[in-house]
């Protein structure tokens, strides 16, 4: 059994919403509301969910770009949830991030060389000529070539920009990379190139990925394990193959069935959800999904929280009468 690189326990990120004359906190946006997950060294954990489910916030919090409200983030054994800027500095070398929109995440006033040198300058690695060589090597590594160094990011296409973003993320040879929707803004043919590059890098450098996306098919391709988030909570976690073969949570089923299949003869058998995703601002009590689930339950049952149950080894589900079709049989067996 390989070691745990990252272990997140009951992480909560609540943003206070202020209003009124004295900026009193009146509401809380519960972006992440008690999520636990762990990543083994060298694996890819795919995190899917719809917009507003808190998956990006979770990624940024693990990267400590957002302050957690409660919970623990154990990275290589140490709880970094409470680290300050100075304590985080050495950790930064090991945890990196790839962003969704490469145009946004690259400073348009810097050349590619300046962008890729920055990690080395910040951590005081090498002199000018050593840095030069490292940048050239990085550009080669991500398939751009040295001549790209003198240009500016906006002179590249979307896919090439994402390669620059990836080069920056691997510059310090990190252990964990959080990929926040890295291919969502890209065209299909470019998307597959970037996914291949990420998989290659993982194999060569022994990287561990937390891969965040809204596209289940993309996550399927790259992930070993997949977690489904809904309204700030993890509702189902399982191996990539298992979750598609044997989805238990109604939301997972709905997500999988909603993906348009590129086969005109495919049979449509959709699990239709009621209504829209509720807002994470003061979400309804109890099971967040109960009010949208195709399994209708009374409000009384809906306001009861579900249990997080391991139904088979490594397959965790939020167990609730409204979220699992044969709840009674599971309840009886456990």
């Amino acid at each position, binding site marked *: 059994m390989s070691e745990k690189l990252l272990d997140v326990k009951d992480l909560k990120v609540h943003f206070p919403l202020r209003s009124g004359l004295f900026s009193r906190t009146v509401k809380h946006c519960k972006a992440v509301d008690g999520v636990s997950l762990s990543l083994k060294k060298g694996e890819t954990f795919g995190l899917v969910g719809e917009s507003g489910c808190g998956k990006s916030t979770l990624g940024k919090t693990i990267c400590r770009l957002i302050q957690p409200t409660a919970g623990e983030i154990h990275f290589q054994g140490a709880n970094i949830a409470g680290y300050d800027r100075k304590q985080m500095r050495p950790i930064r070398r090991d945890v990196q991030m790839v962003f969704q929109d490469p145009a946004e995440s690259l400073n348009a006033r810097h050349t590619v060389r300046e962008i890729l040198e920055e990690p080395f300058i910040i951590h005081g690695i090498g002199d000018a000529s050593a840095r030069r060589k490292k940048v050239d090597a990085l550009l080669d590594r991500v398939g751009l070539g040295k001549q790209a160094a003198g240009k500016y990011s906006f002179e590249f296409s979307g896919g090439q920009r994402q390669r620059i973003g990836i080069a920056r993320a691997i510059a310090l040879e990190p252990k964990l990379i959080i990929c926040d929707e890295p291919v969502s803004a890209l065209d299909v043919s470019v998307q*597959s190139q970037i996914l291949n590059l990420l*998989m290659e890098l993982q194999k060569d450098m022994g990287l561990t990925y937390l891969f965040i996306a809204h596209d289940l*098919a993309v996550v399927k391709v*790259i992930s070993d394990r997949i977690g489904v988030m809904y309204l700030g909570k993890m509702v189902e976690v399982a191996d990539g193959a298992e979750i598609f073969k044997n989805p238990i949570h109604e939301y997972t089923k709905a997500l999988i069935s909603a993906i348009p299949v590129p086969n005109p003869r495919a049979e449509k058998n959709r699990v239709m959800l009621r209504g829209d995703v509720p807002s994470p601002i003061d979400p309804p009590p109890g099971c967040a999904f109960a009010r949208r689930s195709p399994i209708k339950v009374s409000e009384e049952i809906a306001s009861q929280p579900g249990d997080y149950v391991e139904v088979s080894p490594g397959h965790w589900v939020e167990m609730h009468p409204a979220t699992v079709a044969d709840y009674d049989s599971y309840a009886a067996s456990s």
Partner: protein
Amino acid sequence: MDTAEISALSVRNLRAGFATKDGVIVAVDDVSFDVPKGKTLGLVGESGCGKSVTALSIMRLLPNPTGRIISGTIEHHGNNLVDLSIDEMRKVRGAQIGMVFQEPMTALNPVHRIGQQLSECFFLHFPNITKKEAWDRSIEALKRVGIPAPETRVTEYPHQLSGGMRQRVVIAMALACDPGVLICDEPTTALDVTIQAQILDLIGQLQADLGMSVVMITHDLGVIAETCDEVVVMYAGRVAEKGTVFDIFEKPQHLYTTGLLSSIPKLESPGKERLSTIPGMVPSLADMPMGARFAPRSGHPKIGEYLESAAFKEERPELAEVAPGHWVEDCEYVRVFG
């Protein structure tokens, strides 16, 4: 056979582009297709392939003064839309051809109530309608697109609605005057996948109820497979291949189509394996070769000699009919081989 009988909209040799300081950039180069009556035609391709410019050309909504239709015809109900005056065109828009945009928030005016914006559509096309009638019809239109409690929704502002609800409002506006043709420009790209499923179902159901023809513009081959009867695959401003949805997905003849199909991540894949890719990038619109534009990326074994040849620089490949109704760019170096 008279095509006007069976097609609701027929685009012929459309060329459209943008005037820039360095001359005209042609974004749509000689595109022809027919939208069959009561059916759905899909326009698919990656960003910059000209599919949105084609849609805007049909609506005559290219940004003024830079965008323009250079040549070609767009037949609709015996009219050539390209030749209509702006006033005549205004009567066509909304009443005969409706459009649904990608970003529902930008397609709605944030400072007007939903009901006001919907009523506006009725006032434009029925000058004699009273305010009350327009308001009632707005509620009716919202009901039709499955918005719950339409009586209260009409009094709300766009920002009070969720993304999926907003897109329903945009569809309600596009359908307010029962157009015969509905153009959907990436209608679900900005939406979540479960909401996308709802919207696509809604469009399909409305089409069946109203007998509309739909032009579905998208980059998502999954959406195409689920919704379309006929498909036009566009690459770099030209038609690479067109045919029925079964032709395109089951017997693709163009290397771009096969490349696209194989690079989509598939749910049934075992996972963690290399995806097949299309090498290289789309050429820049400013310097397009005359010959088969996909050639540099096609991976055809003998592509070298074509790229060197005069034909690549000078000869535009025509479309060839490989099976009834199935047309492919007629250049052996971008056709499926072996």
